[in-house]
């Protein structure tokens, strides 16, 4: 029988301190029973001789020094796992909240997971078609990749994420899709939006949801992505599903981490975030991938809202250093009702180069996307120039670039939230927009491809081409 420790010696924010404890391990879970019989869970976060510091997930309100007894479980935080989790809804700490009772577990795993050995990884190569041109054409999503959406408050990142979930498929596919959805500190409306969306797409039976709402305890928020990724790893590497993990909003997660860190009295680093923010984020993002010999895959699409739309803020900054690229949404495009508001220049998919082109998508894909990037970068220069000297004063070539920019945004980037474009459609549209530019401006495409795909009259097929 395990010992019940009666009483607490200190309460400080979400933390309680117990004295006179022995035989307790770092990171161990405990159950805290209050006088009225209410139960809370906690975790050991620091051990100092016989003194244990415990974080209480549900918060410490209502706790007093006397009326409490604490029992240590002898185990780290574990999540019960089973195939039955598909279609279920859990809270941030992995407890079912859909009223359907507990999950009968096949096994239980430590939610912190362990690092995948780099030699056991399989390098991701099969691309996932999202049906969104700006992603498929310019920043292709690859199975096993972690590709975040960098957004800002009020932009339509949820719609983009939902569209990816609904339309994602892999060419020549084997194996089944599953979706793990982790909501961290989101509003109820947002969670409802996703739930409705999954339902409309008839996907609810393939979704596992972990919901930590904005009003839920922050410590639970720190557990949410870990629970979600543990479930994802189980579905992928044990059951063989191709799992797409949507995590929103990573900014709330980092804020929770900062709040927790400061309550522990840790030395803050940049903008008050703890110095281990990079390692902490990496321990989540690096759980994406494929394993040699295992059938499934974990692909992550985390969503984060950049505070003040600032891409150099520590959260997007550190995220960008860990993830394999990013999809950046743009305020101006969003405000001019351009959907999806994906700004292609800062967006990037690092794994794209090995998953597109001959044998994967189409031979002209790498050259075309390079050319679109490079030409669109010149559009920005031309626009900046036009802002200073006026459009009329621009050279003929620069005027053509302005026209190309407009056509590119209106035809290539813009699409409907339920429009699912094939990769051929995407690439054709790309070539059509390029046809406004003279061929000698296309310095990223070699002559053979240019002859084969460049059509001078391609422009006539486009919206707003007159």
């Amino acid at each position, binding site marked *: 029988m395990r010992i019940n420790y009666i009483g607490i010696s200190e309460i400080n924010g979400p933390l309680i301190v117990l004295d006179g404890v022995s035989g307790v391990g770092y990171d161990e879970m405990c159950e805290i029973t209050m006088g009225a019989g209410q139960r809370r869970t906690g975790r050991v976060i620091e051990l100092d001789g016989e003194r244990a510091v415990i974080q209480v997930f549900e918060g410490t309100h209502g706790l007093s020094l006397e009326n409490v007894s604490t029992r240590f479980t002898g185990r780290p935080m574990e999540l019960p796992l089973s195939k039955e989790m598909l279609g279920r809804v859990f809270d941030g700490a992995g407890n079912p909240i859909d009223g359907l009772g507990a999950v009968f577990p096949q096994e239980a795993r430590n939610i912190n997971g362990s690092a995948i050995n780099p*030699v056991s990884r399989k390098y991701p190569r099969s691309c996932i078609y999202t049906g969104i041109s700006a992603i498929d054409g310019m920043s292709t999503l690859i199975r096993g*990749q972690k590709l975040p959406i960098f957004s800002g408050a009020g932009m339509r990142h949820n719609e983009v994420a939902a569209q990816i979930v609904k339309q994602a498929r892999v060419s020549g596919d084997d194996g089944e899709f599953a979706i793990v959805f982790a909501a961290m500190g989101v509003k109820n409306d947002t969670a409802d939006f996703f739930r409705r969306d999954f339902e409309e797409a008839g996907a609810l039976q393939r979704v596992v949801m972990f919901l930590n709402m904005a009003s839920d305890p922050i410590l639970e928020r720190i557990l949410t992505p870990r629970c979600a990724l543990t479930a994802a790893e189980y579905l992928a590497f044990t059951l063989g599903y191709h799992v797409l993990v949507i995590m929103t909003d990573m900014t709330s997660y980092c804020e929770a981490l900062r709040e927790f860190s400061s309550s522990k009295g840790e030395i803050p680093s940049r903008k008050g975030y703890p*110095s281990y923010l990079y390692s902490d984020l990496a321990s989540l993002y690096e759980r994406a991938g494929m394993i040699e010999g295992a059938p499934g895959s974990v692909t992550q699409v985390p969503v984060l809202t950049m505070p003040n739309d600032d891409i150099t803020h520590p959260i997007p900054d550190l995220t960008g250093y860990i993830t394999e690229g990013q999809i950046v949404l743009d305020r101006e495009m969003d405000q001019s009702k351009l959907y999806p508001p994906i700004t292609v220049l*800062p967006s990037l998919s690092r794994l794209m180069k090995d998953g597109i082109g001959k044998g994967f998508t189409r031979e002209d894909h790498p050259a075309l996307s390079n050319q679109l990037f490079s030409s669109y970068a010149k559009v920005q220069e031309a626009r900046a120039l036009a802002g200073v000297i006026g459009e009329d004063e621009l050279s003929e070539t620069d005027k053509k670039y302005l026209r190309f920019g407009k056509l590119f945004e209106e035809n290539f980037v813009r699409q409907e939230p339920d429009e699912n474009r094939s990769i051929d459609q995407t690439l054709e549209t790309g070539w059509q927009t390029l046809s406004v530019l003279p061929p000698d401006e296309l310095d990223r495409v070699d002559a053979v491809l240019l002859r084969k795909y460049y059509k001078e009259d391609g422009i006539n097929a486009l919206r707003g081409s007159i």
Partner: protein
Amino acid sequence: MPYEIYSVNGPVVTARGASSLAMMESVRVGGDSLMGEVVSVRGEDTVIQVYEDTAGLRPGDPVLGTGGALSVELGPGLLHNIFDGVLRPLRALEGASGAFMARGVNIGALDTEKLWDVKVLLKEGDVVAPGTVYAECKETELITHRCVSQTAGTVTSVKPGGAFTITEPLAEIKDARGKTHTLTLRQTWPIRTPRPVKNRLPINRPLITGQRVIDTLFPVAKGGCAAIPGPFGAGKTITQHQLAKWSDADIIVYLGCGERGNEMTQVLEEFSGLLDPRSGKPLLDRTVLLANTSNMPVAAREASVYTGMTVAEYYRDMGYHVAIMADSTSRWAEALREIAGRLEEMPAEEGFPAYLPSRLAEFYERAGYMVTLSGAEGSVTVIGAVSPQGGDFSEPVTQNTKRFVRTFWALDRQLAYARHFPAINWITSYSEYIDDLEPWYRETFGDQFSALRTRVSRLLLEESKLMEIVKLIGADILPDDQKLVIEAARIIRLGFLQQNAYHDTDTYVPIEKQKGMMEIYLYFYDAAKPIVDRNIPIAQLRDTGITDALIRIKYDVPNDNIALLDDYRGKIDGAVRSVLEANL
């Protein structure tokens, strides 16, 4: 009395015992014997950083000292292999614990079963000194492994050559005090101690990388240090990969420090398939890979740069030119910060510990062109990637690194957005080695090379000044001779500075072709002058298609037939003549 754990806080564990352990001593912590290292000793408390996840450790668990500093095992079998930050072989770890890393698996770096065909270079009665090469074996097809003695003495017994494992004795020597040492293929070395050398030599040879912007404009010397800072997505990793693949070092130590797991998988896959352009052998035959990905324990990340450096020095001491690529040193600095935070040390700038500059200096100063103890020449070149927060070069890691490196390849976000790769900004980058390397270039190419380089960088500089004006008032307003500068610089940017890492011909360019290309581009600039002198718009020259042809030289002229470059002089002359004639 044994030592016991007293407190646990993340990767930092405090132990108590009768007397303290030694500073920097390597220890085994808890029932799982996790690897750790003593980082501070205060009274009865000994503070230990643990290289593995500390979950489950309890106060009262045992802590065992190993009696020595954190050391790694060195010997044949390092090449063609991949290790974690404290040199545990990842393939063997996979065999022991599967695809996910387990804790407390203590496996030596080297395979103890494998037999090596050893030539023993000693005979009885020989006097051995530190630096004596006592045995040799073929480690890979490319590299002969030389065992260099770390001790002195007289040989008392010796085995004839033949097949040996790394643990079998090759010879025994007796030192001056009469103590017997056994020589095997395996040695150990404490990672934080630089390996001794006879003396340093002045730096005078470039590390040829096959990357035009590096070899020509911002070269790094063998034995020198270079830093590649850049925001995410600017191509630090690709540049490091390119250097690891193509530079003319004998040995590459590639250190993935706190970076992505998939990247290391990619390096492993790609390097296995690629052949070294000089020897035609697989690149992995000369490469040691160290992977401590971002989700592996942070303390091991801190140790990994020293591990990598020790391996590099070990091969240098055999007389090889070694290049170590550290991607990324910022992650290492962050590991320092994280551990310093856990130790509750007083933070200096941006939360980094105050000793950050001295740690950086210690690391970079282990580079150099040396005469080894055995009398051979060897070098360690360090190329460190830096990941500045928010892409802001004024942050402490970039600024302090700048003080200890002499080549600085500044990656530029704007260039990367425009898909100009490698995105090395030619205005803000620099190399202090140019003057040191001057004699080498003169010997190899005569005076021309530096003259060409100077003219090219002047043209680029002038262009960047003109572009300021163009941004304000547009290109049309410029006089024709300045338009020519812009056109020539454009050709150099697109044709010369941009290099396609994924193109078979362009990924590696011999330095002779680099020189030839510069000559052609400057020839174009000179040849086009009569056109602007006669106030003919430079656009007419562009319409002849000559500029496009010049930009495509990198693809159209094969690396093994650079004589074809000479044809371009005729083409340029022809184009200029046709423009002049059309305007008669």
